[in-house]
């Protein structure tokens, strides 16, 4: 098949970016989306042009590196699919595909389609952990966890930190990402102890970093490639309120 591409090009964080048009022939429907971009880059390099910069690593939907906004959807239109898992068979011959970086104040563009998602690490460093030093753990089976809770914790923990939820949200809110981590720990016995401090620290860091508010439009859930549910947000909000009330009591 032949396709046309409209790709966001931006030399560096300070440069003004713009869309550039490309066309690519002989695209096989079996190619992954990134393999198609590889093919475009090969063509650009051979012609003496600069290839398109985009991020990727595992190419199997688990590392969270890939991050393209394709035809108006983060990771493209496919359900529960990362960009690297997207295949050209979901596009049609002659189609024009628009490719942009994540757009969010907290995720500035570094180059072309690569953005800086370091804000997620900062939120994690603020409280996304259980404080247990190496060597001080008890036997694993001394902590019993109800299987349903463990399974649910796993579902929340399967977030890959890609940032699609932020990119999808009109307010660029990071609630889905943050609440997934909060929920994972809240559901496990070993995570409950610090629950109250954790939610306050992570939420305040999130606010500080310029992510927007959640106005319950749920675009995040619809676009999340890992099926992280908005029920996580509800759980986080409950915890947050409880924590606020708790800390006021202490004051």
């Amino acid at each position, binding site marked *: 098949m032949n396709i046309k591409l409209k790709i966001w090009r931006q030399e560096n964080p300070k440069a003004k970016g713009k869309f550039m048009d490309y066309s690519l022939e002989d695209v096989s429907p079996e190619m992954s989306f*990134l393999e198609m971009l590889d093919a475009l880059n090969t063509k650009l390099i*051979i012609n003496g042009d600069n290839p398109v910069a985009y991020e990727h690593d595992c190419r199997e939907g688990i*590392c969270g590196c890939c991050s393209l906004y394709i035809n108006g959807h983060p990771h493209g239109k496919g359900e529960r699919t990362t960009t690297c898992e997207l295949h050209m068979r979901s596009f049609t011959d002659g189609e024009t595909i628009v490719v942009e970086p994540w757009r969010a104040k907290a995720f500035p563009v570094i180059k072309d389609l690569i953005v800086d998602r*370091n804000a997620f690490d900062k939120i994690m460093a603020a409280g996304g952990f259980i404080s247990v030093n190496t060597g001080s753990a008890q036997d694993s089976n001394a902590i019993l966890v109800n299987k349903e809770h*463990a399974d649910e914790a796993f579902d929340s923990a399967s977030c890959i930190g890609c940032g699609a939820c932020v990119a999808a949200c009109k307010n660029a809110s990071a609630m889905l990402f943050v609440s997934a981590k909060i929920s994972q720990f809240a559901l496990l016995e070993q995570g409950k102890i610090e629950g109250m401090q954790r939610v306050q620290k992570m939420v305040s860091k999130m606010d500080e970093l310029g992510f927007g508010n959640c106005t319950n439009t749920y675009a995040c859930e619809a676009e999340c490639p890992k099926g992280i549910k908005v029920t996580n947000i509800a759980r986080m909000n409950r915890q947050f309120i409880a924590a606020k009330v708790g800390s006021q009591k202490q004051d």
Partner: protein
Amino acid sequence: MTKLDAKIPEGPLAEKWSKYKASMNLVNPANKKKLDIILVGTGLAGSAAAASLGELGYNVKVFCFQDTPRRAHSVAAQGGINAAKNYKNDGDSTYRLFYDMIKGGDYRAREANVYRAAEVSNETIDQLTAQGVPFARDYGGTLDNRSFGGVQVSRTFYAKGQTGQQCLLGAYSGLCRQINKGTVKMYSRREMLDLVLVDGKARGIIARNLVTGEIERHSAHAVILATGGYGTVYYLSTLAVNSNGSAAWAAYKKGAFWGNPSFIQIHPSSVPVLNDYQSKLTLMSESLRNDGRVWVPKKKGDKRPANDIPEEERDYYLERRYPAYGNLVPRDVGSRAAKERCDAGYGVGDTGLSVNLDFKDAIAKQGEKAIENKYGNLFEMYEKITGINPYKEPMRIYPAGHYTMGGLWVDYNLMTTIPGLFAIGEANFSDHGANRLGASSLMQCSGDGYFIIPNTITNYLADQIRIPRFDTNTEDFEKAEKAAKERIDKLLSVNGKQTVKSFHKRLGLILWDYCGMARNEEGLKKGMKLIDELEKEFWNDVKVPGIADELNQELEKAVRVADFFEIGKLMIIDALNRNESCGAHFREESQTEGGEAKRNDEKYSYVAAWEYKGSDQKPELHKEDLKYKYVEVKVRDYK
């Protein structure tokens, strides 16, 4: 030839580690913050080490080339992590885990290190659990286990097919906690280009800031490499595509010996090569063989759809050849058996280069739901790639490059032959001999990072507390930085006509053909010649666009591929030297009548540690003789 000293502590096997810890040198807590440690790599090994060293109070500088530590390749590990907990009451123990690894590694690993890896496995699971890793559980709330290849107990802990992700995120959260406390400083999007020695000791690195292109100097009292494996040398492999061997290679060129470079595991079950533009082979975890049965048609060239081939016309060749272990034979055995069937013309799919992995019986017996619970994400992944629903049709799989048992040679302290340079995780050669058993890498990586390196590096640093922080404005740093810049300029100035990727792909094919699942003298020599030619062509005709002082992904690749040529050649030198078959290293000249690998213990019961002697010289071979006091060395038999 010099003798290598592995510095194995005296005493009975089971007491070595506790004795070591009881008698090692310590650093007083107040002095720890005066000591700097550079740690390159944030996979499970690196993140676990960073968290633990930070907790101890050292001043740790951590590097990775991804945008965040959480994306290190460990995130992709699927099936599980081993520990000798014996929660299943099926006769497991530290000794049995140790024994399985020594045997699985085809008697080419060092007893003391392997025993220690098994010994710390239990603490590791406890640590990960406490950190909030949501391992699978039973209804009673306790942890569940499953089986992996090459063993007869159930000792593998898992989090669906995403165990690596969950373990890494656990260790990463510990790392984040230390970043918050200020003991760890994170340098993401940095690529280590060289190691800097001062008076023969590792004291720093040269790194490229991948956003600005700036070349940076960093100093420390000790350096740890946790940079993972070099399986991407084959171009197509199950590894994340940016994985590479360059950091370890830089250390090798500065004097760290490289152990068993040709020992590379080819995993039997990956989505096969489907087309020419494919950039990645996706693993289908070994755990699938708990329930999936491997078969090919009994009739050569049988092109009927798998479901139309009746039961009696199927050859369940693993069950046929290895009744004791069946579908759960170790990886090297499974891979060779698949290759044998395909080479003989029984392979399936368009290319004839794949075999069936069939869940029909398991689904009939346990129901689709139970299978989905265990392997849901893998089935989904398979369908996304191939468009085929594995609940309805067998998966098609074929072996793919997967894991490097070889790596930097380390002693019992996990220190390389360069004082002050340590290597942990997949980057070292240490624990898996000539073949790694499933779920034992995550185990080794976390054990190295959490429990071993914090002790052994302390032992090393104990006499360094009076040495002040190192200045990087010295000749040693200057020289290393200059060399790194020159190499980059050289790559940019070739300005030829072919892309870096096209070279990598051709190199990968050469190695796959001549130094892959089966090797022979003639092929290896031919492979060497082809790589030499290709390397010359690369330096004459590669096209690296852009400039040095910017984010330049082609340049990043070019540096790595330039090293892959050299790594590939060392693999071949090693494979040529070892004229025996052992584990993943199958020399066609050395096989039994039944086509099984034939070791030659008399001549090759050693670790081959190679020393760099300059770009135009052959590396020098040093042998670490392997002595087995606690296991009887036998013919590895899974029949």
